[in-house]
């Protein structure tokens, strides 16, 4: 807790719009630990205002290009945009090459935009452990829209649906030819489907196939039928319609009461993550005790559940 005062100072600087402080704060939440939690605690009351939009889809479909086109559109409309772009960490070295900024050059020099690249540091699900915290910081810093570009590993990137209000799933022409390539799970998380690279042949076919798939699934009964929109992110074609659909979706969430539901769900998710992290960290803070328990489990002197109970019942481990 000794760190508290300067964390609050950093939080104040973030809330006052200092870009340097925001950048530092983002590094701090990536590192994690008690100082990061103190910082998040200080900015948390100032969050909940941004429209959080997730962009997911296989590598190369145009996520970064679309993020840029959408950001340019929102900037013209006078709205500020924060972007978190997640790329994979190499499992061999623990390092990463974060290359999304290459496609985002058109946004440079604009004080209404802030871009942060983030390595997933081995976390599955398309985003990093700290992505949600990064979104909170950008929200607190006052950005009207916060865009999250997922890794795009093509696996189940369902975590983004829990982190964002509006999830945009991007496909490209031809994707519908092989129904197997479009996983049911990815359709379930889509609030909006974009067929990008519509300058290529077959976009209209893919749009029709995706609409048919959505109609076949029972998703349309849920009150919101995800629109399927064609776009050429590289030239800006179709971007206005995507931005309008995203705004429409946010409106739907509010009117239907799902916004409140989702906010509660997100709160529960955040609590679960925070509890796991905090409990584990406290339980491990007594390294010697931790090692003793591990050795006891290994030698079958105690079972893992009893050991966990013991740790949770140790005063100071879980009590706030």
């Amino acid at each position, binding site marked *: 807790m000794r760190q508290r005062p300067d964390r609050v100072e950093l939080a104040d600087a973030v809330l006052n719009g200092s870009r*340097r402080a925001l950048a530092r704060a983002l590094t701090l939440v990536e*590192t994690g630990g008690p100082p990061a939690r103190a910082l998040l605690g200080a900015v948390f009351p100032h969050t909940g205002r941004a429209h959080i939009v997730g962009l997911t889809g296989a590598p190369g479909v145009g996520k970064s290009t679309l993020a840029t086109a959408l950001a340019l559109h929102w900037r013209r409309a006078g709205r500020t945009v924060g972007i978190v772009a997640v790329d994979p*960490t*190499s499992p*061999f070295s623990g*390092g990463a090459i974060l290359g999304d*900024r*290459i496609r985002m050059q058109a946004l*440079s020099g604009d004080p209404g935009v*802030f871009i942060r690249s983030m390595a997933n540091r081995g976390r599955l699900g398309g985003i990093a452990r700290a992505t949600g915290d990064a979104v909170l910081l950008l929200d607190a810093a006052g950005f009207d829209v916060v865009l999250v570009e997922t890794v795009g590993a093509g696996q189940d990137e369902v975590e983004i649906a829990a982190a964002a209000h509006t999830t945009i799933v991007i496909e490209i022409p031809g994707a519908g030819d092989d129904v197997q390539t479009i996983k049911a799970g990815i359709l379930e998380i889509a609030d909006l489907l974009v067929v990008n690279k519509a300058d290529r042949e077959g976009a209209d076919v893919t749009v029709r196939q995706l609409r048919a798939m959505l109609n076949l699934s029972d998703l349309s009964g849920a009150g919101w039928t995800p629109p399927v929109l064609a776009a050429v992110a590289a030239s800006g074609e179709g971007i206005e319609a995507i931005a309008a659909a995203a705004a429409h979706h946010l409106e739907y969430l509010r009117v239907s009461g799902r916004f409140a539901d989702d906010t509660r769900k997100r709160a529960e998710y955040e609590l679960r993550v925070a509890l796991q992290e905090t409990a584990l960290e406290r339980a491990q803070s007594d390294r010697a005790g931790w090692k003793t328990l591990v050795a006891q489990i290994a030698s079958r002197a105690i079972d893992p559940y009893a050991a966990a109970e013991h740790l949770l019942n140790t005063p100071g481990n879980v009590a706030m």
Partner: protein
Amino acid sequence: MEHKIRVLVAKPGLDGHDRGAKVIARALRDAGMEVIYTGIQQTPEMIVEAALQEDVDVIGLSILSGAHMTLLPRVMQLLREQGMDDVLVVAGGIISDDDARVLKMQYGIAEVYGPGASTLEIARFIQERCATKA
């Protein structure tokens, strides 16, 4: 959790070849660093803005255009203006010994590497300098 060394690799100037920059980006990734790669034709302003947003520990600049004596001092000046003097800046490219000396002594570039430099050596230099800073 440990802090990962974050490095911005950029290619200022107007020439369009970024093979060298990509080789160094991969080498630093393989050394366990998080490398933000911003691509070619970056102005000093774009480089410093990206370095600020990404809160990097290191900036690695690859220059072949011959304009290093204007571009590099400009980057250093902008970093100072932003209060980012603590960012380690290394440069690579075809830079004469005389120019390299001036860049290091007068402008605060930490190290200058020629085309034949070992990427392992560059990675080790960055790791050592970041370790003493922390």
